[in-house]
């Protein structure tokens, strides 16, 4: 059988097995905190499929995607730039590391000060969180560019934008991709964080509100939805990656 089909099938098997285990483990659960999966699914269906739930999802996904895209683009651009200008790297790295270490929750006031309470603030916060893994990976990927390749570009006057697009980015692409794969779940986490303040809508809002009012089943249904979303986003990214980086399959060069 085709390896790809088999992979997908195995994935389904893994997923089904996990769901089954969860289902059985919580079937008769009386714990408030670990309700039966069946109840969680019911709640999820009730809320997330309603008009209100769909609006929550839409608003979160909108913010999430904008933040993620901005974070990824800025991360790549800055990372690739810093990777090639060691002076810049040295000058900025303490400041970068400083900002990076501050929890998003502590940066919330700052984001609010800059953008008020609206969508911009949330997008900013998400982008700010997603930027780091992409930036660091792009930076390191650029720095370890194969020296012979770097020399080739120099010799043939492949400079400027052309060098970035044709040499540096493809060479750093596998690293950048791994950075993006870390950024995707971060964007979901930050969507939740950003909706803790000043919002009336969104998946994060629903989760936090449920948490504050001890509606744990509702909270689980939100967490479940986040998982599904994260899985979908990662899967989509995997597809995009295969299309954008076809040469990477050389790793599995004919056996």
């Amino acid at each position, binding site marked *: 059988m085709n390896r790809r089909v088999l992979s997908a099938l195995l994935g389904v098997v893994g997923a089904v097995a996990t769901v089954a285990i969860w289902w059985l483990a919580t079937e008769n659960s009386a714990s*408030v*905190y670990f309700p039966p999966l069946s109840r969680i699914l019911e709640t999820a269906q009730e809320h997330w499929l309603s008009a209100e739930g769909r609006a929550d999802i839409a608003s979160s996904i909108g913010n999430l995607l904008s933040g993620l895209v901005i974070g990824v683009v800025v991360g790549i651009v800055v990372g690739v730039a810093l990777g090639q200008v060691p002076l810049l790297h040295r000058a900025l790295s303490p400041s970068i590391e400083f900002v990076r270490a501050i929890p998003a929750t502590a940066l*919330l*006031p700052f984001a*609010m*000060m800059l953008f*008020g*309470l*609206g969508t911009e603030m949330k997008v900013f916060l998400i982008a700010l969180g997603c930027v780091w893994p992409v930036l660091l990976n792009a930076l390191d990927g650029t720095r370890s560019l194969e020296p012979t390749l770097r020399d080739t570009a120099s010799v043939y006057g492949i400079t400027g934008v052309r060098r970035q697009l044709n040499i540096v980015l493809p060479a750093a692409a596998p690293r950048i991709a791994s950075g993006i794969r870390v950024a995707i779940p971060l964007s979901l986490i930050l969507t939740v964080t950003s909706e*803790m*303040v*000043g*919002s*009336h809508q969104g998946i994060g809002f629903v989760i936090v*509100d449920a*948490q*504050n*009012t*001890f*509606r*744990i089943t509702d909270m689980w249904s939100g967490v479940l939805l986040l998982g599904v979303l994260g899985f979908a986003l990662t899967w989509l990214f995997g597809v995009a990656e295969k299309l954008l980086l076809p040469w990477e399959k050389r790793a599995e060069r004919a056996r």
Partner: protein
Amino acid sequence: GGPELTKTADGRTALRVGIIPTIDAAPLYLGVSEGIFAKHGLDVTVHVADSGAALIPATVKQENQIGYANVISDFQAAEQGLDIKLVHNCCGSGADPAKDVSQVLVKPDGPIRTVGDLAHANIAVNSLHNIGEVSIKMALEKRGVDVSGIRFTPMPFSDMNDALKRGDVDAIWQVEPNVQAALAAGFTPLISNFVEARPEATLGYYLTSGAFAKQNPQVVQAFSDAMDEANRFATEHPDKAREAVVTNLRFNPEIVSTANLPTYPQGLDRASAAEYATYAVKYGAIEKAPDLDGLFWSGPAN
């Protein structure tokens, strides 16, 4: 089950009490520093957490034998089936609106100038469907304002002043000591929502898990007795109460010195809880009124 209680060398029962960092915690600290708990055979350590969302689970798990949550959170937790018992009043509103720890404030030059204007305001609260929302609506309704058009926006107290300044919200709900900062920023108080909602109400309770209460009724009683004393002490010595939060919670002494203090009432107040329950149902914070008999601890006899 639940973890075994440990005793100190001199035979006192070690008790961990969870609290959130507000002025409400003053009697608890005084109880420790003034030896009140020791007198009742308890060795209390205070554990501070940012929100009730973490405190109630820790209490249910009996990691903190005693916890704290406001009256609405208590109802919500009970409604969701968390096994809690309210043990003692923590803090309450007095009868004098001028001394309320809680205010709804607006910008002097903002869109909202009068209490009536609040009917269509966007008000910042620290958490939706909670005490702020319920008490504001209660207070406004008592003033004859239609509350159906009010919007609430959640954010931390510390962010509210700026949000109001920027115009992100029309009004903010602040509790002490943040009220002082808001007044210093030039904002105008419109209503004293705790006092106006219901004077002499209990707003927050010390609670424990039902299982713990069942197993250690004497300890709970001792705590309750000690809190009676500690609350009385705090009421009689407001300066010491202020000092307690400055020392223990590192509150800014200047701000605390001008801040209003809540009342620290005796025993367990059911009447105000019943009234809050009614309104909480009305405003959708809970679905149906809790069984207060089950929720309130009724002494070691049971």
